[in-house]
């Protein structure tokens, strides 16, 4: 059972994600995580001023339970099911990131510069998290879904809107990764 404590291969991760989708479908629900951000807005009363949030958000409570589970799953995965969490990256990527001052590439799970506790007092890290978070939240809703809703659920259901959204994810991702992030980090 030692493999459990090592990082899991793609052929374990991918099928388990498909299993999560199957379990939700069998529960008469759909697999889509970004809807929760809309639910949170609605639960805080955004529906009073904005029609987009004026719906029966209580019918989406099951999905909030799913993300609470994901929170606990992250905790279990990190604290109880991992002996070491360094991500084994391609050597070219490690070199590239070191040039961008991400010095812990290949030795950590997340870059300390963005996600370590020191970033609370680093305006640049905070701005990156804020801008990136904003784009993710805005873009997911504008596109009608995120990686789970479009790239997994939607494409599995052979939906053209999902294919177009996923092409958009990669256009945006490649622009950021290849042309912008070098100036930002």
């Amino acid at each position, binding site marked *: 059972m030692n493999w459990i404590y090592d990082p*899991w291969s*793609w052929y*374990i*991760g*991918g*099928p388990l994600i*498909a299993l999560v989708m199957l379990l939700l479908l*069998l*529960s008469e*629900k*759909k697999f889509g*995580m970004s809807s*929760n*951000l809309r639910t*949170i807005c609605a639960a805080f009363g955004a529906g009073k001023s*904005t029609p987009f949030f004026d719906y029966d958000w209580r019918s989406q409570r099951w*999905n909030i339970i*799913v*993300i609470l589970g*994901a*929170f606990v799953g*992250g*905790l279990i*995965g990190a*604290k109880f099911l991992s002996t070491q969490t360094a991500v084994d990256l391609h050597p*070219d*990527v490690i070199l590239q*990131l070191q040039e961008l001052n991400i010095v812990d590439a290949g030795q950590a*799970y997340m870059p300390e510069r963005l*996600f370590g*506790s020191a970033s609370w007092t680093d305006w640049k890290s905070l701005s990156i*998290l804020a*801008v*990136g*978070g*904003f*784009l*993710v939240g*805005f*873009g997911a*809703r*504008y*596109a*009608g*879904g*995120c*990686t789970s809703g*479009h790239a*997994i659920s939607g*494409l*599995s*259901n052979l939906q053209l*809107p*999902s294919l*177009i959204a996923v092409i958009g994810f*990669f256009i*945006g*991702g*490649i*622009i950021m990764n290849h042309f912008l992030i070098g100036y930002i980090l």
Partner: protein
Amino acid sequence: MRTIRYFIIGILFGITLFKSEAASWFRIYEMFQFKSFHMYGIIGSALVLGVVITQSIKRFGIKSFYGQPIVIADKEKMLKSNLYGGIVFGLGWALVGACPGPIFVLLGAGYLPVLVLFFFATLGTFLYGKLKKRLPH
């Protein structure tokens, strides 16, 4: 009872995202650099199985846990917004390396600055709702 079921599905999802490194900023960076098969393997294998699952449910009329027919709704066809929104999402995904699922997984794993990401993602969703009528769809 159903609440517990959703909670357990969520735990399975969270452990999977963390342990398969799909929640790692580094893996997303590497994916957009096309330097590793890992993320493509995860998304690709989930997708291949997802197609088999979804199409089987539709073709064979598989019933839910509660004995009801399973209805899988089509995605709304608003192709402009799928593309423009997708590009905006991709810009953010490649910058902070986290989409909405991993946000919660990473918070559980103890990366507290992700709270900033979470707050602004919610704000982004809110602003989309405010501006919806003025955006091309």
